[in-house]
């Protein structure tokens, strides 16, 4: 039943990617900010969580810390840096790359270069028995559930609430929303904070099975971006479908053609580029 296990691997990795991709895609859709620092957020959040876990032994506290830490970081980052580059995408790229470099070196100084693994909480350790006699790591299985829950909550927020309706309107037409008298700044701030929280938390979650190490910030970011490319910028459904596709392709790629697993990820992207360059659910902007 190897292929089933690989599917589960794909789902769980996809769930992790979703946490990063959803934040990136909505942030871009709404505020036109291409926040490449998401990779740095992942790494920093993960390391923060690792340390808080070490000091307190409390996994939930650590997770909160990893998310909150990044929210605070992002607040200052956005206010004092990103705002100075509005609508200049080139400047934004350079800025966010620069900040990621800074995060990378500081985390290197503090936590060193050896890969660090975060110890999952007791209830998430060991295997879980699944149908078809499959034994699967409990942690990764719970990650799938977590991803689904986060996705569901986002979905409800996005599609069924007033708040979500305003964001959707903003993604469609930012000027309209601000002309309607809605406090666009506050809207952005909330969306940025949510994205930052997820990014930080994803670092801690990823740290449990992928480990944290210098370079991870880029490796995870690129895959999250492939999700966004495949799914379409600004689309939550796109991020969901995209993370599913990328997660599965990655898992099966590693299993069937380990030498070329990176190349496999290229395949869905290339297909999209040929037929739908703006992504599965992307809009022509």
């Amino acid at each position, binding site marked *: 039943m190897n292929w089933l296990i690989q599917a589960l691997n794909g789902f769980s990795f996809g769930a992790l990617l979703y946490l990063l991709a959803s934040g990136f895609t909505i942030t*871009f859709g709404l505020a036109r900010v*291409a926040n490449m620092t998401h990779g740095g957020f992942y790494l920093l959040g993960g390391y923060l969580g690792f340390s808080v876990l070490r000091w307190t032994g409390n996994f939930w506290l650590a997770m909160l810390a990893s998310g909150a830490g990044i929210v605070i970081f992002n607040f200052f980052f956005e206010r004092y*840096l990103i705002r*100075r*580059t509005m609508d*200049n*995408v*080139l*400047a934004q*790229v*350079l*800025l966010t*790359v*620069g*900040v*990621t*470099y*800074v995060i*990378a*070196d*500081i985390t*290197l*100084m503090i936590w060193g270069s050896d890969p660090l693994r975060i110890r999952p909480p007791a209830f998430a350790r060991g295997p879980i028995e699944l149908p078809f006699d499959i034994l699967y790591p409990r942690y990764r299985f719970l990650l799938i559930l977590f991803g689904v829950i986060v996705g569901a909550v986002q979905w409800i927020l996005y599609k069924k609430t007033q708040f979500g309706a305003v964001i959707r309107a903003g993604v469609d037409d930012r000027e309209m929303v601000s002309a309607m008298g809605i406090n666009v700044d506050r809207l952005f701030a909330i969306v940025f904070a949510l994205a930052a929280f997820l990014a930080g938390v994803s670092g801690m979650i990823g740290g449990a099975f992928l480990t944290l190490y210098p370079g991870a910030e*880029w*490796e995870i970011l*690129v895959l999250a*971006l*492939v999700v*966004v*490319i495949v799914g379409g*910028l600004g689309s939550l459904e796109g991020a969901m479908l995209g993370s599913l596709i990328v997660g599965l392709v990655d898992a099966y790629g590693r299993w069937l053609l*380990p*030498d*070329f*697993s*990176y*190349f496999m*990820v*290229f395949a869905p*992207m*290339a297909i999209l*580029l*040929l037929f739908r*360059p*703006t*992504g599965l659910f*992307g809009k022509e*902007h």
Partner: protein
Amino acid sequence: MQQRQWIYLFIGIAIAALIPAFLGTYWISLLLQILIYGLLALSVDLLIGHTGLVPLGHAAFFATAAYTTAILQVRHAIPSIIAAPAGVLAAVLLAVIFALSVRTKGVYFMLVTLAMGHIIWGLATSWVALTNGDNGITNVPLPAVGPVEITSLKEYYYVVIVVVGLCFPGYRILIRSPFGLTLRGIRESDSRMDSLGYHVAAHKFAAFVMSGFIAGTAGVLYIYFNRFISPDTAWLHVSFDALFMTIVGGSGTIIGPFIGSVVVHVMKNVVGTYTGQWLLIMGLVFIATVLWAPYGIVGLIRRLGKPDEAAGDPEACGDTAPTEGA
């Protein structure tokens, strides 16, 4: 105007040619890095400064060319006369495939090229049978063409001076040509160019492949200089460095990317002697550039020279406007 530029070029080449007489291997090596990475940055700027596309994965072409030449020379003992052009060709072929990316614009293009660049790094790391993985390929010989054999770094230095020196007028003609003007029109407005009769996608494709050609040339120059290649050469930092060089030096100009290369390499060498935290410094410099010198050094100098033009756009006074009777 044109005469002045030729004079600058000759002075530059003359100075560069004299360096080995006065300074040692360290400086020759530094200059070689500046020239080679400057050429890579130039290839990036063909797209940024003249086509309006921001590629984030050009290290892919650089590394592919270098790996190809390295593998041919080291493993198959193929002479430079074939291995070198083969390297450039490999980069061009990769560019043809990756040119799929020009079907996207703006941020999409950046993300797609970033991913494509990273994929090449991934291949370099995992396709061990071909690339030797993280151990890389060593003992790449210096180039030799028939009876002419390069035997030292100093001699190779002159080869690079000649090649890069030839690139200057070549690139200048390219950007001042009707095709170059077309690219700048595309940079300003895709849709307007459509309505003037241009097949925009085809021009972007051509520009992308040309850019790959230049990056590949830089890659071949690199491998004979470094004589060793590993996946590190395909890592994102190399692409970002090239991007930074064109911005800090001055996008849309010919000398800008090379000035940027000087800045980066001097920084790395100076910073490197005091601290190992060069990523931190680079990051801070990126940030500082964005905040205080978004038009780069060339832009700053222009702005200082013409304070009343501060309202205008430095790019508009670049050396790309046609002048009649020149």
